[in-house]
């Protein structure tokens, strides 16, 4: 029987940086279908795969990094990246030997911040994969 994976063991790295204060990563990947039908198909539609698309939605506390923290993106880095639709190489998955990963390039699409009168502010960041994903295993 296989092993369940704990949520905190799956992370997203953009370039060499993680998003500071991340509490949740959502990753969605789907195949792009191409529909076709010929007379020979006798009225039954045929589907072919035409690549894939993937997106990320990351939820994090709004945080300001310490001066020494060069390996993280804080809220101001994220705002700038979204405003400029910056792209970065991503690695999504675990970090331990044998963990599965998905890698590729991603574009920052948007960030939406929530700040109320009682709680710490949070931000939701949307990214979209550009190009094709590479499926790997750490250490393989």
């Amino acid at each position, binding site marked *: 029987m296989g092993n369940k994976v704990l*949520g*905190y063991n799956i*992370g997203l790295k953009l370039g060499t940086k*993680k998003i500071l*204060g*991340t*509490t949740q*990563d959502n990753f969605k990947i789907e195949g792009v279908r191409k529909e076709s039908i010929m007379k020979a198909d006798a009225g039954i539609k045929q589907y072919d795969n035409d690549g894939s698309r993937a997106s990320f939605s990351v939820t*994090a*506390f709004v*945080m300001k990094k310490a001066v020494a923290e060069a390996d993280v993106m804080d809220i101001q880095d994220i705002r700038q990246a979204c405003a400029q639709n910056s792209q970065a190489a991503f690695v999504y998955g675990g970090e331990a030997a044998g963990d599965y990963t998905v890698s590729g390039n991603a574009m920052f699409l948007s960030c939406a911040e929530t700040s109320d009168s*009682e709680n*710490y502010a949070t931000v939701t960041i949307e990214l979209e994969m550009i190009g094709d994903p590479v499926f790997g295993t750490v250490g393989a």
Partner: protein
Amino acid sequence: MILQAVISTVKKVIDAYPIIGDIEAVTPFAAIDVKQKPFFTKNGICGYSNTAEIIIVHQGLSVVMQKSEEVKTVVAAMAGTIDQTEIENVRFIEEEQSFDEKSQCYINLIQYQINSKNQ
């Protein structure tokens, strides 16, 4: 620890004790309980949310309310490092007055949310 930080702060204006079993003390006094919950991120804990309940007890309502105001002043001013706990911010939640028939004392229950960097 945050409980010690709250107790030592409240003790500036009134005798204060942690709520552990029955308390036998000379009124007015404060009894304090703190519930702590960590803020988890994927990289670990980045702070703690502490809900502090401070109960002010005395036979006279006016004394209870006067001491409550003094307690609110010192708790709201909690900042920096107190008893090794680094305080980030303090937020008043609510207060509620009641009368305890058994002890014949008035009680004011004051609740705060205190966010701290460490335990």
